[in-house]
């Protein structure tokens, strides 16, 4: 699977990461490149892409020093820019196919870049700190390649999953976000709504967890199915950890890995590390930088470069804690090493312990500094957690599953909607329901969202001080007669498609009002 898909994908998309502070001398341009996908492109091409990007950045910075360019729309390509860390840029070049012309949301693409970066930072710390640690750049390159390849293949997998589940988008292409995804928001968390009683139980569990770990600076994240129930982390850390959990840790992610396990094994029989070997073997990798790096990679691959996004490597242990061999196993004992993650705000290093009971996933972050003797100390903490909290966990799981409405819990019949709160929390119609929408409606919504994003950005630029966010209300009639609606109010956004409300604008506005009053406690009710 690996080879074919990556090759086809390369036709549609290029992704590069480069550091503007490096390779400033003539002849050392290659030093800038930290990552390029697909790797088998000739260096000349790679450099030309990066050169163009760098030129544009330098040029636009003259006019807007704080926020350089965000996107270039060429005739056949879109270049999406994202400055991940200062002077480290991620650029994605996307082909404009006929189908997706003007329908590919730039913002969604940028959010993909943001997501890769935040996940990378979660497990490896910032790129800058890695570059500072090892100035030649070999270290970061050896980390970035497997990481991003795994991430992208996760994309393929996700879409494959979509295929099998919902009969959607048959094909093996890399599924970048398209207009079809305009009723979802990447980089946000989805929350489970719970009643007060359950919420208190959850909070009580969280407190017991934190206290049983012995140190006060523990953090925890509680998920039910693929929804967030509770977090004590900062918003940014919550989002990246939530993303990772949904990708790899939730029961859904674990079981999907299990079902396709045999299939993957078959395809991977030839090579141990499928995606990576694709890169290393396929192209005519001529340059010595890569070669040397690959050589070193091959040697250190097993012990140094961890691939947190590697598929199907997490499993549920007998004690209920999730374990993975990604980080190797402890010498002496057969227990697997617990991963360490970095918090963005404090740059603290934390052990990541995940516990699962039925649909309940609990992620506990314990500061590395508080555990003296590594795995041994950690297993003590785990034991403590089990002793103190296992009963509570059972109870919380029971309570939450009793109150849960199932896959379509948040479906509101007649509406297809997306609700974003403060760009951090979102809720949307279930994908299966969104799928029933006509292409025209989705295209129209996608266009509308682009407009709203532009408007938001303008508002932000013009009045960065006033915290009163711009209020917007847009209703568009799509070609197929559906109403496509966007409303923003005080940091909250509502996007909606009403296909059956073919009547009048008044009718559509009325529907929105009803929805707002019932499900958003009247946030979007204007008058």
């Amino acid at each position, binding site marked *: 699977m690996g080879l074919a898909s990556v090759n086809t994908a390369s036709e549609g998309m290029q992704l590069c990461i480069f550091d503007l502070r490096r390779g400033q001398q003539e002849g050392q341009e290659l030093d800038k490149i930290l990552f390029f996908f697909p790797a088998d492109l000739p260096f000349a091409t790679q450099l030309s892409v990066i050169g163009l990007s760098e030129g544009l950045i330098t040029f636009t910075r003259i006019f807007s020093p704080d926020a350089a360019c965000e996107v270039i729309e060429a005739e056949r390509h879109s270049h999406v820019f994202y400055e991940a860390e200062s002077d480290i840029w991620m650029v994605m070049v996307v082909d404009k196919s006929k189908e997706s012309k003007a329908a590919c949301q730039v913002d969604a693409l940028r959010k993909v870049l943001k997501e890769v970066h935040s996940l990378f930072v979660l497990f490896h710390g910032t790129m800058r700190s890695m570059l500072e640690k090892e100035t030649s750049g070999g270290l970061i390159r050896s980390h970035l390649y497997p990481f991003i390849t795994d991430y992208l293949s996760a994309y393929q997998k996700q879409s494959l999953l979509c295929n099998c589940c919902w009969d959607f988008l048959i094909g093996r292409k890399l599924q970048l976000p398209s207009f079809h995804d305009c009723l979802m928001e990447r980089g946000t968390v989805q*929350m489970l709504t*719970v009643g*007060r*009683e359950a*919420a*208190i*139980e*959850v*909070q*009580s569990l969280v*407190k*017991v967890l*934190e*206290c*049983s770990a012995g140190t*006060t*600076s523990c953090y925890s994240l509680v998920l039910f199915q693929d929804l967030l129930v*509770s*977090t*004590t*982390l*900062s*918003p940014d850390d*919550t989002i990246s950890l939530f993303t990772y959990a949904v990708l790899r840790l939730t029961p859904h992610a674990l079981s999907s890995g299990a079902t396709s396990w045999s299939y993957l094994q078959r395809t991977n029989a030839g090579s141990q590390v499928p995606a990576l070997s694709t890169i290393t073997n396929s192209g005519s990798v001529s340059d010595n930088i890569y070669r040397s790096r690959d050589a070193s990679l091959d040697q250190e691959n097993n012990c140094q470069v961890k691939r947190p996004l590697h598929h199907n490597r997490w499993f549920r242990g007998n004690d209920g804690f999730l374990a993975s061999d990604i980080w190797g196993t402890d010498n002496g004992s057969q227990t697997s090493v617990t991963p360490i993650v970095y918090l963005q705000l404090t740059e603290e290093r934390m052990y990541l312990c995940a516990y699962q009971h039925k649909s309940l996933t609990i992620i506990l972050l314990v500061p590395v500094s508080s555990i003296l003797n590594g795995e041994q100390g950690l297993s003590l903490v785990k034991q403590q957690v089990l002793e*103190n909290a296992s009963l509570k966990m059972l109870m919380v799981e029971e309570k939450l599953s009793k109150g849960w409405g199932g896959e379509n819990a948040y479906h509101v019949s007649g509406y297809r909607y997306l609700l974003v709160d*403060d760009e951090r929390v979102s809720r949307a119609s279930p994908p299966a329901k969104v799928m029933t929408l006509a292409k025209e409606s989705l295209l129209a919504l996608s266009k509308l969202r682009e407009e709203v994003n532009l408007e938001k950005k303008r508002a932000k630029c013009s009045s960065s001080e*006033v*915290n*009163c966010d711009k*209020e917007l209300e847009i209703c568009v009639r799509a070609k197929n007669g559906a109403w496509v609606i966007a409303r923003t*109010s*005080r*940091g909250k956004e509502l996007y909606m498609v009403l296909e059956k409300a073919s009547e009048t604008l008044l009718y559509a506005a009325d529907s929105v009002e009803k929805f707002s009053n019932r499900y958003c*406690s*009247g*946030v979007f009710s*204007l*008058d």
Partner: protein
Amino acid sequence: MKERNTTSTLKRILVNCSSQAKEYGGCVAKKVPEVERDMCLKEFLALKNCMQNVCLTSVFCYIKNFSMSANASSSQLTVGLSGSGGLSHAYVQYPPLKCNLPGSRGLYYDDANKLLLSPTSDQVFSWKTVPFSPHVAATADYINEGPVLSIRYSLDAKSIAVHRSNQEIQFFQRETRETFTHMCKSESESILGFFWTDCPVCDLVVVKTSGLDLLTVSFTSKSVNLVETKKLSVNWYVYTHGSRLVLLASGMQCKTLTGFQLSSVGIVRLPRFEMVMAKSDANSKPVLAAEDVFIITVYGRIYCLQIDRVAMQLHSYRFYRDAVVQQGSLPMFSSKISVSVVDNVLLVHQVDARVSILYDIFEDSRAPISAPLPLLLRGLPQSHTGRPVNVGESLDRNSSNHELMFYGDDWTFLVPDLICDVASKSVWKIHLDLEVISSSSSEVPSNLEFLQRRKLEASKTKQLCLAITRAFILERRPVTMVAKAIDVLVSSYSHSVKTCSNLKETKVDEASASVGTNASNSSRSAKDESRVGVGDKSFNLSASDSDDQSREIDSRDLQKSGKENLLGAESSRGEVQSSSLHTQQLGLGNNQLNANNSERQDSQLTSPAISPDEMYSCVFVPVGEEIVGDPSYLVAIIVEFLRSTNSEKIKVRPNIYVFTIQLLVRYERFAELSLLIINKVLEPSKEVAMQLLESGHQNPQMRKLALDMLRQLSLHHDYVTLLVQDGCYLEALRYARKHKVTSVRPSLFLEAALASKDSQHLAAVLRFFSDFIAGFRNTPEYQDYFRILNEMNTGLAV
């Protein structure tokens, strides 16, 4: 103190079992790498055996040592202080109530009226024991000369009945001094005793060897009328007014008992039952004596305790309406046993061993709640040394003539909590020292449970509970443990709210008090019944006297205001003659209450239950002040508290939410805070919203949450004002129009519009108000802004 005991036990084990321990240790050491189950079984069993013996005997040793030391100096009686360091779980307070009168012919106790009676040749003096006060003055009534076997006032205190002989009971009316005599009909039967009752069919019950006679007494006709007879051969009987239960013993061994409960609801005959008596050998047939059976009332349930001298056990039975169920046994360490009940705690006095053991038989547990310790004498005028007073010597000095014997032969334990020293004619009241009891228990939740059940000194107990909880939290015990303790407090509070017994009127008529138990007691016992398994149909017999206890007021409070009390007693003495003893009692009560108003509040509390507000102000706030650093532990406990109140459906005032927000904001735990707000764990209210607004300076997210909350609470005025403050005056206007908010001054909007320097907006706002508010055009505000607007426009034009 407790630690000292455990270390000494351990020491004893180590000393006594050293050889066994050595053997076992050696055995294990030999086989160490391959540790198996049962590998040194023989050695282990030997060690275990030895240890158990030591442990078992430790209690006995303790008691034995004690009694030995007491015996050795029995003439001097240096009891009570040597082993306990001056602390004890129960004590009597000096001075006692002295009933010493010249010409007294003995002391009698009327447990129905709680009167201590001392007849002289032609008078009977009575002292009230409730509320207990050593300074209470005696009241005198005239009776005829003659022998007195027992004497009891009628329940309305209007007449006196005197048991003269086996055949004769004499009645006196107090007011009119009328008198008449009731004689036994036949010679073959004799009167064992009598008691007054509030049973609807009769006034007086006479227990005879041939059964019970239920009588009504009429002074107008100067006769008694027989209402009903219960035929039964009776050897002896036991009665307490508290339980309204009379137990009649029959049979050769006197161990077949029949019970009648004569309460204001009617007469209930209990099924006949047999007491358990162990036999020393096959032929011996021990006879049960009346002194060996005690009726006690605990938590409104009626139990009977029976001494089994052969087995050295105190068997307990619980009475239900249609069954008597044996409940288990308590150990006896003395051949002479007496029991008291103080505040629903059972005290078993091991008289020979000179210690008392405390049991709380609420949960059917037979474990004592503290170590066996002697009663202590408190409040003696301090001797020259500062140390606690030694009973013996001080008595030598103080109570010159009469030697007070602690646990002496002269001691009579009166129901439920009095001790009468016959020799010195003094009466003591037993008090519990809850502080000592609770400090000897390390299990805080169960300790709190115990304390919450105490009703006697409710306010003191409450303070104790609060202090214990505070200390428990400050010690940073595991959250689960603290949660348990909080559960105890909250469920106790919810219970007290449900039964409305928290602020109970004390002026319940005694007759009506017998209608039943406290609702709380009956519901508790109902719960227990299912566990006992007797079945639903069995209602347990309820004690009707539990209200009397709540009427008792801490005697030390009385001492504080002792002067007033004396006065009160004297002034009310006049009333006594005209009305009844009962009113005297109330009169005194009122007097005392007037004496100290603040105390009144406290003494009216009948339950130490702690309300959420008190939890907040007496636990969380002080703890919050003392805890340094991360507040997450305290927040965890507050969350547990909220969980507890939520499950008990108790409303919590917003102040605790505000407090939680302050805690979380202080340490910038905004993620947790917003979750708590969004999920309504901290319920929305104006106070909460305002607190969030205040923290909005640090985190704009909080301000948003606050605004949302205000809108959801429909606090339109505040919402609109805040929107204007944020500069969202147009939205505020829209909102104001929708919800007809007219209370916000237009000038606020106009100022905001002016600040935005947008003449169109200003014009719009001006126009809006001139439409929205009638007569706005005529206000100076309108004129001002109209002028400003014109200036702006002309400025633009230029």
